[in-house]
């Protein structure tokens, strides 16, 4: 029987493919927000049943991950007037194909890791790996700095899923540690982006090449 969480996780996988294929920043942000919401809901359904504490943590995570961060980025691009295109280094179709291969490879790799998936959620580990690597892929394959920030956040979603698959009890501590990290990271990136924008009048990271020694 298919576990209900597996259904949720397959939505995460779809969101990855969607984010690989989207050419505009708003679309990418929406895909990330969707992914964030699902990722933060997943832990509620695995492990011990639904507790009041769990619901509280989940909702806080969901608000930060699924709403606050994407909204901030969305408002930021509106305000600063950044180009809407994600400026791919590797094209959208090729990215989709790579995404598919990535899912396959992750399922293959997930078996090798030999992590005892909690319950019988067979997709948890492969999805976690796919999200993680997918985030790094966005970092590599997109020139627009905002798209790279989004890639970073996606990576963080992956780390959260990996954490979920490792432990149930101390999850919240780990999660809040990570969230704090992300907030700091996003803030630093905002500052850096502003500096790049001021210096080069664009947030195309390829321009950073001129800083080379």
């Amino acid at each position: 029987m298919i576990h209900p969480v597996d259904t949720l996780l397959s939505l995460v996988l779809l969101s990855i493919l969607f984010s690989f294929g989207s050419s505009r920043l708003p679309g990418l942000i929406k895909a990330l927000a969707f992914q964030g919401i699902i990722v933060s809901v997943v832990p509620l359904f695995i492990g011990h049943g639904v507790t009041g504490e769990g619901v509280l943590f989940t909702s806080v995570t969901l608000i930060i991950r699924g709403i606050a961060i994407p909204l901030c980025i969305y408002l930021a691009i509106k305000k600063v007037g950044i180009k809407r295109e994600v400026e791919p280094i590797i094209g959208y179709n090729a990215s989709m194909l790579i995404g598919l291969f990535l899912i396959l490879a992750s399922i293959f790799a997930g078996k090798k890791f030999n992590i005892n998936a909690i319950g019988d959620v067979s997709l948890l580990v492969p999805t976690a790996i796919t999200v993680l690597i997918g985030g790094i892929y966005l970092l590599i394959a997109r020139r627009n700095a905002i798209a790279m920030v989004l890639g970073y956040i996606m990576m963080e979603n992956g780390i959260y899923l990996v954490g979920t698959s490792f432990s149930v009890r101390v999850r919240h501590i780990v999660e809040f540690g990570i969230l704090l990290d992300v907030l700091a990271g996003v803030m630093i990136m905002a500052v850096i982006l502003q500096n790049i924008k001021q210096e080069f009048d664009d947030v195309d990271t390829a321009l950073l090449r001129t800083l080379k020694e």
Partner: protein
Amino acid sequence: MNHFFLAILIIASGGALTLILQKQFTFMKAVGVLGISTGCLIGLIDALFKLFNPVSHHLSFNYLNSLSLTFQIDGLSAFFLVAIFAVSLLASIFSFHYMSKPEKSLRTAVNYLFFSLLIASMALVVTASNILAFMLSWEIMSLSSFFLVIYDYQSPENRRAGYLYFIFSHVGAMFIFAAFGLIYGYTGSLGFNITAEIPETVKILVFIFSFIGFGSKAGVFPFHIWLPHAHPAAPSHISAVMSGVMIKTGIYGILRIYTLLDLSTPLFGQIVVIAGMVSGILGIVYALGQNDLKRLLAYCSVENIGIILIGLGIGMIGVSSGNPSMAVLGFTGGLLHVLNHSIFKSLLFMGAGIVIQKTGSRSINVLGGLLKSMKITGTTFIIGSIAISGLPPFNGFVSEFFIYLGGFQGVALDKASFVLSILAIVSLAVIGGLALACFTKVVGVAFQGEPRSNAAADVDEKGPSMLLPLIILSGACLVIGVLPGVFINMAVNALSSVGLAFTPDTIEPFTKITGNISMAALIFFIFLLSVLALRTILYKGKTISRSGTWGCGFTQPTVKMQYTGTSYASFILEFFKPIAPNHEVLKSVQGRFPEKTKYSSRINDIAELHMENVIVRPVLWLFDKLRWIQHGDIHLYIGYILLAIIVLLFFV
């Protein structure tokens, strides 16, 4: 043990407080000096007490359950602690008037912080009793001394010196890591106590790795290259601590590893003796070629490390060939020289510090006649010079004489040991002679004669806190020289705690001989002084005409008619040309109306030259070829990270 940690705590908090108080310059210095010196004093008394009551004291900290830091004070540690705390105590007192620039208040505060860290970490290095504690303290020591070296970071030369020191200390640490890694790999324990169980062949490797690692800290030729750059760059009281005691932690490491490995083959003693002879002779030859006062002293440290190694090596040969009196004489001499060198070298560095602060120049060729205006500094510097040349009645004589005696014991042995013993004796004699030449050069050029520049002409020696350590240290030189018994006992106690003092009774007659020779020399000195006093009394009331030194009856002598440091040393250096190439720049005089001409010379260090040709150039070439990896594209950089992760996940 608690007193020891109390001392460390007081030292560190004294250093940290200066950062808070940096607005009030003098108060900040007073707090820093007071904290550091109080801590050192407590530590010194505690270490002396432990040295004469040889019971080993343990303490361990557990960190994260699995990683424990353990410390232990046995006789050997206590012996080094005495040197560390004594020299640091005097250096911190010295610094009160030496650090005299209120506009550099923050930098002075940072200097005090790292100074206190350096003292604390040195003390922890010699007490650490497991790998973790040792490496942790070792790294703190290297890093804090690095920050002390780049105190005057605005000068590019000092930054370069700091960089060189940083590289050397970390390459050295890497070798130590390798040695400890081997130990850990074979014993599976972080502690030092079961190290003797590893196989014989591995022991050789461990010893060689740790010898290179510790040797690069101690300044053994050819790993000494950082020393003549880093020591002049640091403020003088820091140079005194670094040259006086910090480099001795390398000696401590070699000795400790030797005792832990419980080696029986004569190979190690031979390696150590040969390394000692090479660094001794080359160190003093290069010292002779220097005209920068602190660089000269730094090279001289290389020489003294050589002497210490000769002593230890003779001891090791004595152990492996079953000659207990040779062993005990060699080890005692070497260990006592550690203490002696830390005393007279810090004396000389602090004396040099006063000279440099008052005249603003490090080159002895622009000094001269300083003895007339800086009586205490000059006199104590001369005492330090006599001591470092190994002449009675001062302390350098005692330890070198013991090493000589150890060498003579080895003459009765079989072939290899015989040859090495003879060579050790000969090279000790060469070193002693050259050291005497070197220091007559310094004293003669810088302190006697006539001032060669205006800067050297009007100087004073104000700053009682700078003079007090000099007087104490020169007093210590004399006391150890005249009454060597107590101090030899200290060294013997230190050795017996690690099982190296086989028959301490055999040493008694040698101590007596040494004491007698020193006493005879002292009587000679007292006689000389009384003749001088008699002369003053007899000449009272008579007119004595004075003229310039080296005036020689010329009616118009100029200061240029004196020997310079370069010309004084050139006769000796001519002989050592193959190992100390002289780089001369001379525009010769040509034609009837010659242009203004110039001459400059520099003695090159062959180790430095060859390091540049053999190591630095090929490495730079290689990395130049790999430059394309750094192309500035952030996406590919992230790609590298991804690649590394994947490789690690699947192949490791």
